[in-house]
């Protein structure tokens, strides 16, 4: 009887484990509408460097408004040279009962995991590590954020990115054409991430002075045209002149998303050991 019980436990173990469901990594099952590439013999001049700041936030994160304000101040100080993305995710991003919006999506959650965020507010500046920092992201330390962003502007981008958006009100569909042109080659594989971003959203937010019900949320990542970790730009290492044109579409965009306050952000980044963002670009959806 004793042995029967032991073997029953063993057999149960065998059967129990495989029945456990698991959440796998994000795999891209939809191809871009258009995906073409060619190598041009004419190398265009380099664009000016644009730094991408990802501000990891949450509506119940008391210090996150400081992070939001710091990013807004940087964008004001560096017009046309910096892009802000507010990425909601993690334990402190659960909406309040009176929230009308949930800024957390599968993509923003995965970005938190992908960047290894362990606290909020946190920020990345082109996803590169800075001296004295333990992680790829910066936890707090708001007074250093502008210096980190400015330090990235000394880099010369090796890829130019152009965006063209079209909006179809009837089907509430955004179509975005992203053209990446390499001005230099690089041995690393690169990826392209494309975000749908909205500003001026009024919804509750915890702040040091207490909960603010009419807080203005800016640069909020609403959705992504690509998977969270980006879509591969080309199968081979890029060479100078490589031109990759990809067209993506987001359909049935919720009616509460205000397209007048929305824009598309695209960035090309490394996808090997380094995750460095090489260049970013933003463009409004409705001119």
């Amino acid at each position, binding site marked *: 009887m004793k042995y029967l019980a032991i073997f029953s436990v*063993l057999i149960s*173990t065998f059967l129990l*484990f495989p029945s456990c469901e*698991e959440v796998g*990594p994000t*795999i*891209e099952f939809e191809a871009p509408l258009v995906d073409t590439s060619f190598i041009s013999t004419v190398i265009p001049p380099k664009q000016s460097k644009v730094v991408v700041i990802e501000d990891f936030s949450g509506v119940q994160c008391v210090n996150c408004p400081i992070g939001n304000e710091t990013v807004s101040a940087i964008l004001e100080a560096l017009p046309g040279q910096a892009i802000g993305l507010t990425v909601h995710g993690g334990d402190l991003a659960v909406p309040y009962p009176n929230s009308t919006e949930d800024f957390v999506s599968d993509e923003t959650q995965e970005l938190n995991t992908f960047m290894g965020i362990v606290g909020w507010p946190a920020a990345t500046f082109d996803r590169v590590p800075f001296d004295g920092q333990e992680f790829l992201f910066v936890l707090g330390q708001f007074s250093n954020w502008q210096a980190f962003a400015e330090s990235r502007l000394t880099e010369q981008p090796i890829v130019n990115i152009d965006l063209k958006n079209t909006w179809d009100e009837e089907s509430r569909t955004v179509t975005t054409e992203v053209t990446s042109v390499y001005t230099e080659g690089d041995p690393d594989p690169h990826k392209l991430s494309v975000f749908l971003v909205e500003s001026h959203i009024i919804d509750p937010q915890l702040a040091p002075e207490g909960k603010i019900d009419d807080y203005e949320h800016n640069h909020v990542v609403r959705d992504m045209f690509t998977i969270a970790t980006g879509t591969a730009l080309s199968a081979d290492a890029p060479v100078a002149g490589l031109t990759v044109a990809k067209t993506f579409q987001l359909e049935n965009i919720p009616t509460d998303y205000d397209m007048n306050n929305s824009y598309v952000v695209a960035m090309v980044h490394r996808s090997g050991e380094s995750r460095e963002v090489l260049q970013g670009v933003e463009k409004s959806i409705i001119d």
Partner: protein
Amino acid sequence: MRLITSLLSLVSYENNLLMHHNTRVTSVLAAISLLCLLLYLPLSGQDQSSPGRFSGDIQFNGRVFATDSAIGAANTPFYDWAKSSSESWLQLNYSQNSLEMGVRFDMYNNSDIFSGGVTEANGIGIGRWFVKKRVDNFTFEGGYIYDQFGSGSILRAYEARALGIDNPIVGVKGTYDLNEHIRLKGIAGKQKDVRSFISKNRQFINTYSPYIKGLNAEGNWSVNKINFSPGLSFMNRTIDEETMATIATEINGQGIDTRFVPKYNLYAYSFYNTVNFKNWSLFLEYAGKSEDVLRDYDNSLYNSTGNMMYGTLSYSQKGFGISLAVKKLNDFDIRTSPLEQLTSGLVNFLPPQMRQNSLRLVSRYNHATQPLDELSYMLDVVYTPKKGITMTGTYANAENEDELLFREIYFDIEFKRPKKKWKIMMGLQLVDYNIAVLQAKPLEGDDRFVDTFTPFTEFTYKFTRRKSMRVELQYLLTERDRVLLGSDKEEHLQDLGDWAYALVEFNFAPKYSISISDMYAIDGSEHYYDLSASYTKGANRFSIGWAKQVEGIICTGGICRPESAFSGLKMGISSTF
């Protein structure tokens, strides 16, 4: 127990040190600590009632490289600048009553065993340590653990030095004898990553990131002269997030229609049983696994469940033995992750259905188990019609869904008359070797096979009780079907063509042995000489030789790896104590 705790804390201390100090210095400190502890134990009086016992072994291989462009022994780091290489393993064991512990010092200096002579590997440090203690029916072990569940079809942690395979589980193991019939075993840990051990980022403990754990139960009963040995095993491997991110990136780079969501967890199980009745023995095993990421022959990732069926039936009586083995494999490659290839990260072991040949040309073309798709079987017969005459025959066949992979027909007969000074063995081997699949090396035209015909003989003559001479003669003919059987196949060189081999060896038992051999490439007009000598005294053996070796495939138990040509001096020392 206090001593075990001391040892573990020492190791832990060294590991912590590693985080702040130089790796090599720390590894040396760790080695010294472990050795000191081993030396301390006999004096410490852990249990004065029974004296402790030291045992161990050492193996040293050394090579000096001499460039020979004609055979391809050139233009690698070994011939360009390294000029010499060595590997050494020193194992020290200590046991006292129910306590066992051991430590192994590994050294690779510009070693060529991991790459098959392509790139040099360097690593010095503790390659293994373990502590094992038995308390009543329960035995537990911590450290680097070599073990396997059943035949190893879902889990085998083992070492094959010639191939650079060293994949113990670094973790813990517990074994519990439920009674005299049933033994339970559990193991958990991570597989040693020997490639990290030989890298510049070497740590004191080097493992793959995925986590492996398993359970095994085995029994043994006899009922009315029928003996049963059943067993069941379960194994789970969990891929870590960083490894999975790399896998996901690769999947996202594939065509849309070939993409899938990979699983972090692999679950594998096996049921097996051996039944012995009089002269008969039957072994049956079925193993299966859940969905897992696999790599196909085109280097693309795909998702599949897998299974394995294996059975052997044998009969033996005086003067006669016969055995039949059948194995079917379907997507049954189990590794720490699909990012590992060739001999890296192997979690299970699937032996090939082929003879383990030792003669040089007879063993030139070996089958490598194809875990993704293979049906193989082997029939072995040994017959001794009268004393002094032994005949051996083998028929082995392996194929996948599309084509034949390997076929071997082998026969030898040995005459060893009582009280005669001589012994002679002669035989014939026919092999069909799918070189396009097994070496990814297609031949000219549409031909995918090397088909061989290899007659061989071995003659031994005893001058005196201590002095003897052994002669081997072999000839490997390729294009057998065209040359001998009149096939209308187009004439072209198969692999490196025909070979002839001769060896003369003198033995002065029990100490000295000297041999000279030549493997001659008929089509390439190249000689591959080998002049070797060895000296054995007690448990010590020293050998030295000058050799030229042809490039090819080196296999151990169905695991194969390409091997570059070699020219130079080889030395070896082995000892046990």
